[in-house]
């Protein structure tokens, strides 16, 4: 669980608007390789937008985002490069319902990385074993529970051997029993040293694995700190209010 000095993601003075609505304001943030960052904040504060900017699912209008040395501009080649380095897991899994679990996992390696099918399947099975559902490989997503589907989504991202993983509320669409399955998988991943940015309200998870908790409100980063400090000793009023709501819930 060591953090290197190398910079994985560098965001500087980044701004984003939806039409005339200023969603992200002057975001500055540096993520080092091996860091695990949890982003939290009230609904609508721009958390999702921020991490979606990191793999250019959303375009930013000013400032810079450099991922693994590649700046995100409108150049498609750079975008492709970044996307194949960055894995993303969504709230609603977004598995491809017409493909089996195995096909879901091998699709991108085969078509984007041009890896031979055989090899891609081996990798896929490796990661499916890691998320503990190798036996489901030939089922369709519709046949799995939510927790299993989310683990498949994680495995699917991992199959691209990403250097950075983004999670957008990966557990918030799940029933309580299933949340644990997914969090366990994520913790395991964290322990292996994966660089992770995770939007979540699971404060237990944050305390367990995060190097840093980032609190956002109204499109700005209000506060960031080590989890222990963050929870025990929040600095801004906003954070305090937010924590009282979240933890009291």
């Amino acid at each position: 669980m060591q953090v290197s000095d190398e910079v994985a993601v560098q965001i500087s003075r980044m701004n984003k608007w939806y039409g005339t609505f200023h969603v992200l304001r002057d975001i500055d943030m540096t993520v080092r390789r091996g860091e695990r960052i949890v982003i939290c904040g009230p609904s609508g504060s721009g958390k999702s937008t921020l991490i979606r900017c990191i793999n250019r699912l959303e375009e930013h209008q000013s400032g810079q985002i450099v991922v693994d040395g590649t700046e995100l501009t409108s150049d498609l080649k750079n975008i492709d490069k970044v996307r194949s380095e960055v894995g993303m897991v969504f709230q609603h899994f977004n598995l491809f319902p017409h493909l089996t679990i195995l096909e879901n996992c091998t699709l991108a390696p085969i078509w984007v990385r041009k890896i031979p099918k055989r090899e891609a399947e081996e990798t896929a099975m490796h990661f499916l074993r890691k998320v503990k559902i190798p036996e489901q490989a030939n089922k369709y997503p519709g046949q799995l529970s939510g927790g299993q589907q989310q683990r498949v989504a994680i495995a699917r991202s991992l199959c691209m051997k990403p250097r950075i993983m983004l999670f957008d509320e990966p557990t918030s669409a799940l029933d309580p029993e299933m949340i644990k399955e997914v969090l366990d998988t994520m913790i395991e991943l964290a322990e292996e040293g994966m660089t992770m940015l995770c939007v979540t309200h699971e404060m237990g998870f944050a305390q367990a694995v995060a190097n840093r908790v980032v609190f956002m409100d109204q499109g700005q980063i209000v506060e960031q700190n080590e989890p222990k400090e963050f929870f025990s000793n929040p600095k801004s009023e906003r954070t305090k209010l937010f924590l009282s709501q979240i933890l009291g819930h």
Partner: protein
Amino acid sequence: MAVASDVPKESFRLSMLIYDTRFRSLTIQVVVLILFALAVAWLLNNTVQNLAIRGKEFNYAFLWQRAGYDIQQQLIPYTNDSTHFRALLVGLLNTLAVAVVGCVLATILGIFVGVMRLSHNWLISRLMTVYVEVFRNVPVLLWILLAYVILSETTPEPRAFRVTDEMLAAGQAPAARMWLWDTVAVTNRGMNIPAPVFDRPLGTLALGPLTLNLTFLALLAVIAASVWVNRRLVAAARRQQEETGERPATWWKSLLILFVPAIALLAALGFHLETPALKGFNFQGGILVAHSFTALTVALTLYTAAFIAEIVRAGIMAISRGQTEAAYALGLRPGRTMRLVILPQALRVIVPPLISQYLNLTKNTSLGIAVSYLDLRGTLGGITLNQTGRELECMLLMMLIYLSISLIISGVMNIYNRSVQLKAR
């Protein structure tokens, strides 16, 4: 530590046309536009060449030549001395007549059948299902022919109405009689209905190519005025009802307002009905509604109504059962529930596919020639084309007209659609 500002700023390169999201879509659009322009140019060039080879030219002067043929149903004055353009107008109006009447009737019938299909009456819902399935799954051309044949084979010839001296002497009755106190004659050619005639008409007003019938205008004006006054009256009554809960009796006032002025005007103009009478081969006088019109309208109505019924049924079923139950629980009767709660909501689901049914019906009127109905396709795209040999001009003009009709219908319906959009958060 790699610093972001180290990344060099790029200058423009050709490959950015394809690989830069900013230019990429521009590039594609320019390429598409060029391809499109090339295709159009190619087609135009071919057309010009072909016209030259055949020694033809592309112009619409023929529209102002004498048409030379007769049309059975004319909503505007037309003789064989009129121009092809006039024939086009007659055809267009005939098309629109069927389209408008058909759309209205098909909507009414479609809603009726759609609702009946959901009826608890086993026999009725089955009958409606059979109707819908049979009509939907057989080409409309067959229904048009069928309707026409049934109309013309089950009705008597005009001759059957004739009363000869021998028959009078023998006390025989004619084989067929007119309906409604001898005012309407249904023969195997059509329905002869009474025509309104004015002894003291106001004449016409010529405005360039348009001639306005002043009598009609006056009548329309009086009716519009009466309707407006009546609406004021009803509004006043409603206001009173809202204030006191008592609704004053307005029906006799309404009747007076609505009918007295119109009747007075009619009397002043010397209005009377000209009833058709058998003279020679046919009934003369009155208005002839030819069976070709009726058959085309009926067949298109029945055919389209089958589709509309399905649309209506689906629309109604799309409204959750909870809505009905809530209305019942409030004490609303089934009929009112349908009218006040279900239909207004179902309409939103129903209208978009309904539009395309209207469009289909309008387009299907072009099959009228199969039953001797001279619509736009029969005049401009049929006899005129045939007589003048101007297929390019006629066909393009015809497509343009149909296209305009379609666009107008869908435009109007889209406006309606937007206005009933459900408000949500």
